[in-house]
């Protein structure tokens, strides 16, 4: 395991708005003795432009991504959505020449964090401790395009002190949808309200998932709509932060970075 070399991809949204998730990912992978590299020239996978219908712009991002990452043994990102973009949607970008060749091999080496831990490293217990009641929201791209459902569940089941709730809840979109939420904010918010209320039923203290975009949308929904009668609003938290929490380095909601410094 020590020999595994991993290039970290920190999606633009995580980089700019969910730093804690990125640091937690670093912490987890380093705890497993993985040789981690981070290229600070990385920006975005191109999904936002692709979903908005700007194929040329998306291709630009894709080519940059491929240039920066094609040498990596593994590429790991704490996001199902961005991984799926690279793995599947780049096929629709008319890549050519060396970009196409490099992508065809790169797409087999990019993984979402929990998928990498469970399926590639065969790890489902990394000594985490998180003594709270937690519910999962399975993000659509991770669930439907990458088939990620069992992996986060397995990891959470082995977290010390953690009580899983909402396990039988039907999977449904949170209503975020990237450009969709910008174009139809009211509609997106109503869908968020619907999903957040489903997630509140078992009174979890935390709602977790593998994509910060969805979690932020849900956080906003919880904040806007308040708690259901007799319930308290759960916090939203990326699964990496749960897994990074241990008895010696317990979860700190105020901490912005690894170890609480910077």
């Amino acid at each position: 395991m020590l020999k595994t070399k991993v290039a970290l991809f920190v999606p633009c949204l995580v980089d700019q708005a969910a730093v804690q998730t990125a640091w937690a990912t670093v912490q987890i992978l380093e705890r497993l003795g993985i040789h981690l590299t981070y290229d600070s020239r990385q920006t975005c996978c191109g999904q936002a432009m692709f979903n908005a219908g700007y194929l040329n712009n998306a291709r630009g991002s894709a080519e940059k991504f491929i240039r920066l990452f094609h040498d990596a043994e593994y590429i790991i990102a704490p996001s199902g959505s961005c991984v799926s973009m690279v793995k599947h949607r780049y096929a629709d970008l008319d890549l050519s020449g060396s970009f196409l060749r490099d992508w065809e091999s790169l797409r087999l080496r990019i993984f979402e964090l929990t998928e990498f831990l469970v399926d590639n490293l065969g790890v489902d217990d990394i000594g985490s401790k998180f003594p709270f009641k937690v519910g999962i929201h399975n993000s659509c791209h991770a669930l439907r395009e990458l088939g990620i459902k069992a992996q986060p569940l397995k990891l959470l089941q082995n977290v010390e002190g953690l009580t899983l709730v909402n396990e039988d809840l039907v999977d449904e979109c949170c209503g975020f949808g990237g450009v969709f939420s910008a174009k139809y904010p009211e509609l997106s918010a109503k869908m968020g309200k619907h999903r957040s209320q489903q997630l509140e039923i078992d009174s979890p203290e935390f709602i977790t998932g593998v994509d910060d975009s969805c979690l932020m949308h849900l956080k906003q929904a919880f904040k806007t709509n308040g708690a259901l009668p007799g319930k308290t609003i759960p916090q939203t938290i990326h699964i990496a932060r749960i897994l990074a929490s241990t008895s010696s380095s317990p979860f700190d909601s105020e901490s912005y970075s690894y170890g609480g410094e910077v």
Partner: protein
Amino acid sequence: MSTVKYKIKSALHDQQLYAAIQNASNLSTAKRDDQILGLDDYESSRDAAREVRQRSVDYSPRLIEKFTREFTALGGKVYIAANASEANRITINILKSHGAEKGVKSKSMVTEEIFLGRALESAGIDAVETDLGEYIVQLAGEKPSHITAPAMHKSRQSIGRLFAEKLGIKYTDDPAELTEVARGMLRERFLNAEFGISGANFLIAETGHIAIVENEGNVRLGLSIPPVYIAVTGIEKLLEKLADLSPLVKMLAKSATGQKFSGYFHLLKPSREGEDGPEEMHVILIDNGRSRAMADPEMREMMLCIRCGACLNECPVYKTIGGHAYDSTYPGPMGSVLSNLLGRNKMLHQELPDLSTLCGACKDVCPVRIDLPKLLLELRARREKPLSHNMLASGWKWTMESSSRVEVAGKFARMVEKVVPKVMSGGVKPGGPGSFRTQVEKRKSQVESPKSKIRTDDEQ
């Protein structure tokens, strides 16, 4: 504000509508799941269904020719209409030649697509809808809001009020009583109908059969009592062989209504003299953009659709706003694609491909595996975009080309939190800690050994 935006806004403020749609789609989804999850060969059944439909599209011109030959040899008549007005004209001409003025119609989305009801009305022809949901919608002067459950947007209370007002009965919201009232009204019409019009689920080129599934028996009455019968359907509904029906019928009712099999299944062809059934049988095949779509390598997949409506029931957007907000005959995920392929001009409903979070639920439930998110994305890429969007996109592209530009943009965004989409506010406090990138670089520049052993590229 666009019509679609306006309609979404009103839908979002209609609590009754929301409750009705949520209730009905959740029920449909649950019933579908009951059927589908019980199938141990679901995936291979989908493959089989798709293979049949793929042949329909691949061999389309040949199948139209063959069907026309078979159906005509049996004594029926086949017409090919290039567009909506041609189809309406043909229908009206057939009816006028018989002096037929009063008749019955069964549910058909293709007739909605071409606004046949309106055309008949202005030609002085009275065609009453006989599917219960369609009857309700016609009585209310509305369009269907769902392709298989046309009155899905209505609560039983609103149907009760509608019946009381339009039919002069005492108010009741008991579904059984309301159905009985409609049945009584319709029975009379069936017995005196001078013509019957229906859609068709499939047409069999090999044998000249028309295949129709239904649940209420109204189609059966409509195609057996009146002397003139007309089936109106799209050119993509042709199947090569009779045996091709089986894999499709297997999936259709399960996906559409969560039934193992539909209440009725009709396989009909023109009757010979002395046999039961209509004296004349006509089939009108409508193109209206379909052959163009079939020739379009990226979009032809949409022509595989068998109109089950599962993608509507499953779509979180559809479930929130209902079908009318799409301002198109076909709503939901399939409608957002199909509506832009039909008609004389390309992309008549440019906004619809945006009405999706791309969650992929539609693709997962499609019995013929249509990759709807991919088609929606393709349409987003094709359509013309407003200048303001192009400018935003160029700005985004320019920013994403360099990590230092991302940093500037991110700092700006965190400073002026109000101008950024609410995601930002969900994630980071204003004046927060800066990006991961800057933190890594700061850590790297610190002489004292940081906790993290993370390496940046130039260290290697």
